[in-house]
């Protein structure tokens, strides 16, 4: 007996949907492959943390730091993609999920890892982030922020940190910074500070972290904890969100049930959001890091389909995510320099 036509139609639709779902990551991979390089830290086959670069589709992975005697982590390309900052500490020390920006010493290298050298000693130039022109870094210490000239190593400006305490990122136009602050009635707020006036405003006051700027500096992408009733050992789950730099227009970018989404980083052209999907609350840098992934920002709001999540976000799209290797704190540049021979 032939199946009813409606069943055949349903089956056809379902098969087409499955085919589309499996083809989608392939299409996304093809789309992003030529768009520069992603740097990230990950464990090497020798067990130490190294700085790697790969094409944005996960291909052509290469070791940039090549230093098996040290733990190398927290890579940051300069905005022109020609230089690379990361932190380094003796092998065997544990990379902290919260304090990685102030562990070890700051290293400066060409974007392909060549000519790596220390900038200062242990615990100096903590939470360093690039100026737009790549000539200065902004650092964060208990005494406050400091802007340091990379050639002279001199502090050219310092100012109070006003509650900011980790993960600062300098805006693409150099006019502001965004970071994690305890100054807005939650311990882990995302806040923005104008560098001309030192005025700060909250961007999001839920439990938040790992903020990054959109390419035009108008919006912030960050991790935000979904309100919860104590599941996952009392920690709930963390999602990717976005908001205007003034805190207005907060909206979901991407959520999963069963993984924390951290390490948000916007592609240089502003079209994609890169993240790590962590099973463990702390981002798991003490072990292997977590699988990275990326999605088109235009596809937001999106969720990895799950009944509980669909109840929370009934209007969200079904996510189309490109899965990438395991790593920690990824960073994307449109420059081809990271792929050049050392």
């Amino acid at each position, binding site marked *: 007996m032939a199946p009813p036509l409606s069943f055949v139609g349903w089956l056809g639709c379902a098969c087409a949907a499955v085919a589309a779902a499996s083809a989608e990551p392939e299409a996304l991979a093809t789309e992003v492959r030529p768009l520069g390089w992603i740097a990230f830290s990950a464990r090497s086959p020798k067990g130490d943390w190294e700085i790697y670069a790969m094409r944005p589709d996960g291909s052509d992975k290469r070791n940039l730091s090549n230093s098996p005697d040290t733990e190398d982590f927290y890579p940051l390309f300069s905005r022109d993609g020609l230089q690379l900052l990361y932190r380094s500490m003796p092998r065997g020390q544990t990379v902290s999920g*919260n304090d990685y920006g102030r562990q070890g010493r700051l290293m400066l290298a060409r974007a392909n890892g060549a000519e790596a050298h220390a900038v200062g000693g242990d615990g100096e130039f903590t939470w360093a982030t690039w100026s737009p022109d790549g000539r200065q870094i902004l650092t964060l210490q*208990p005494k406050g922020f400091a802007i340091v000239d990379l050639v002279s190593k001199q502090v050219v400006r310092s100012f109070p940190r*006003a*509650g900011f305490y980790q993960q600062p990122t300098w805006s693409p136009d150099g006019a502001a910074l965004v970071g994690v602050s305890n100054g807005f009635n939650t*311990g*882990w707020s995302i806040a923005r500070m104008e560098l001309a006036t030192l005025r700060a405003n909250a961007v999001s006051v839920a439990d938040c972290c790992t903020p990054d700027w959109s390419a035009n500096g108008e919006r912030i992408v960050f991790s935000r904890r979904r309100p919860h009733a104590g599941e996952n050992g009392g920690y709930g789950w963390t999602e990717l969100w976005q908001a205007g730099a003034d805190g207005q227009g907060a909206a979901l970018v991407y959520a999963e049930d069963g993984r924390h989404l951290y390490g948000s980083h916007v592609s240089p052209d502003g079209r994609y959001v890169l993240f790590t999907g962590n099973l463990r609350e702390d981002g798991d840098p003490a072990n292997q890091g977590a699988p990275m992934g990326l999605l088109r920002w235009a596809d937001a709001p999106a969720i990895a389909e799950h009944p509980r999540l669909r109840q929370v976000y009934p209007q969200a799209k079904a996510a189309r995510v490109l899965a990438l290797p395991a790593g920690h704190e990824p960073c994307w540049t449109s420059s081809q320099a990271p792929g050049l021979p050392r």
Partner: protein
Amino acid sequence: MAMVALVGLGWFLAPGPARAPFPADLGSVEVVAQLTEVPAGAVFHRELYHYATILRYEVVTCARGNLKPGEVIYVAHYDPWKPRAEAGDARAGQIGGTVRAFVAGDRHHLALASPLDDHYMGGLVDKYFGQHAGVTYWALRTDAE
């Protein structure tokens, strides 16, 4: 039997572990103060994310500094769910004291430092947000009084 009794009495009368003297030069302020309350949600167990919580005290006596009896002060305690003697770490540095848990109404002998930003970079729980201005102290040592 008498010997056992004597040994037992000796144990009972023996002094306990010597209590560390309160340092005279720790921080910039030394007070005895009464913890006025522990607001709901101010102290909670959280292993993965260290935090400090701000608690409200009323000064009883001041040995160092310019605080007056009756004055209200706000004090940040690091990882307040831990006994003070076990709270110090690389992030918070020198934290200590004999207080094992924060209980409203208790009197504490405190060594304090300020400003808070100079001593602590991290998550902060402030159930008094918007209700206090000026100095927030960082608790270096908190002894039961």
